């Protein structure tokens, strides 16, 4: 499994995302640029230029028509995936840390940072898909400030009237998307900051990663923790694989090996865990710095990781990966 190295970013990666078909991979970085790549051969298809600060977050709609991005320049932008043009720009008092499309692509939820007299906020916008996409409303259809620990990651739940959030304190919660009322909360989901949140295809369960060195699988409806994956390193990203019941985890390096391994060697790993059995299956090395973000191809044929080192690595799985049954013949429902 020789990885394809995507070279084009000059600073660390913040988020990567496949489109629904998986033929395109979007990446954003602290270098202010958003790139789109062909998954197949790693060629760069284009860039989305315009942000004047770290691009913290991106999401692409299910038709690969619109891309939404959030940046430290205090704007959220809507882009045409095809032409690379910026179609609309929303301005906020603080940086945009997370954006996500709804299942039907008709709404976007975003988190803005808490800073100097501004509370952290969650806003939901309607996305007008008629016409060329430039006719958007500047006003959110809902706007609320979660009290207590600030929200750092968010997504629409299985029911689009609910927003799932992950917080700095380790809390995971469900908010009513219209009223901003907290419908459900698990304050002890993690013991430290939640760093990533990715949903299963039907949104009925999701995985979170945390600085507390664990990743957890949650039931979206009840927020009960279904599974826990405990590692030795603070985690930055967790992704649910398709085709195989694996969870992919990425983060730093365990404290013990920091002194014994050289950064030059590319020792930072993506860890594969069995989703149901909670056992570690294997590791893939490669990055020269912590793994910041992981995404799995929607059909499970490859995965990509974005690192603090400024590289994106795309790993297409070998045939042996699909044939291997490390745990015997267990049929697992997706």
């Amino acid at each position, binding site marked *: 499994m020789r990885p394809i190295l995507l070279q084009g970013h000059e600073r660390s990666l913040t988020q990567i995302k496949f489109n629904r078909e998986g033929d395109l991979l979007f990446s954003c970085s602290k270098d202010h640029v958003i790139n789109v790549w062909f998954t197949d051969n790693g060629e760069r298809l284009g860039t989305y230029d315009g942000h004047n600060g770290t691009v913290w977050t991106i999401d692409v709609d299910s038709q690969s028509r619109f891309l939404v991005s959030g940046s430290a320049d205090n704007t959220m932008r809507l882009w045409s995936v095809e032409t690379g043009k910026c179609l609309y720009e929303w301005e906020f008092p603080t940086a945009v840390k997370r954006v996500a499309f709804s299942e039907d692509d008709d709404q976007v939820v975003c988190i803005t940072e808490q800073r100097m007299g501004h509370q952290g906020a969650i806003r939901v916008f309607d996305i007008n898909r008629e016409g060329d996409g430039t006719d958007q409303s500047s006003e959110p259809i809902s706007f609320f400030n979660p009290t207590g620990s600030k929200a750092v990651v968010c997504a629409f739940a299985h029911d689009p009237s609910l927003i799932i959030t992950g917080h700095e304190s380790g809390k995971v919660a469900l908010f009513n998307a219209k009223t901003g009322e907290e419908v459900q909360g698990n304050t002890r989901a993690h013991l430290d900051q939640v760093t990533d949140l990715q949903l299963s295809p039907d949104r009925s369960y999701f995985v979170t990663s945390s600085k507390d060195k664990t990743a957890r699988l949650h039931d979206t409806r009840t927020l009960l923790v279904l599974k826990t994956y405990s590692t030795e390193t603070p985690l930055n990203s967790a992704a649910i694989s398709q085709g195989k019941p694996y969870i992919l985890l990425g983060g730093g390096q365990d404290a013990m090996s920091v002194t014994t391994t050289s950064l030059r060697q590319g020792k930072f790993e993506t860890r594969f865990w069995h989703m149901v*059995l909670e056992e570690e299956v294997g590791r893939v090395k490669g990055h020269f710095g912590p793994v910041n973000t992981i995404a799995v191809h929607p059909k499970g044929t490859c995965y990509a990781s974005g690192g603090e080192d400024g590289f994106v690595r795309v790993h297409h799985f070998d045939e042996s990966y699909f044939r291997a049954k490390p745990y015997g013949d267990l049929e697992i429902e997706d």
Partner: protein
Amino acid sequence: EDAADESNVSAELIAQRKRLVDEWNAWRLRAKEELAEERKKRGKKVNDEKAPEEEKEEIQVWIDEVIEQIEEVIIE
């Protein structure tokens, strides 16, 4: 592939794994039913996951590029 060789996995562990998988599958089936139910209530058509397989484009691209090859010589 040698992982297929399970002889060293104890019967106890196999039973434990089977139990975990059974529990998971039971939960998934229940959750899927409830989800379909809720979707209907919202007046949405139930997404039948397995939508007809989209037509696949055959693209052949041959690229073989060595990205990195690190040779380390260890001198005693």
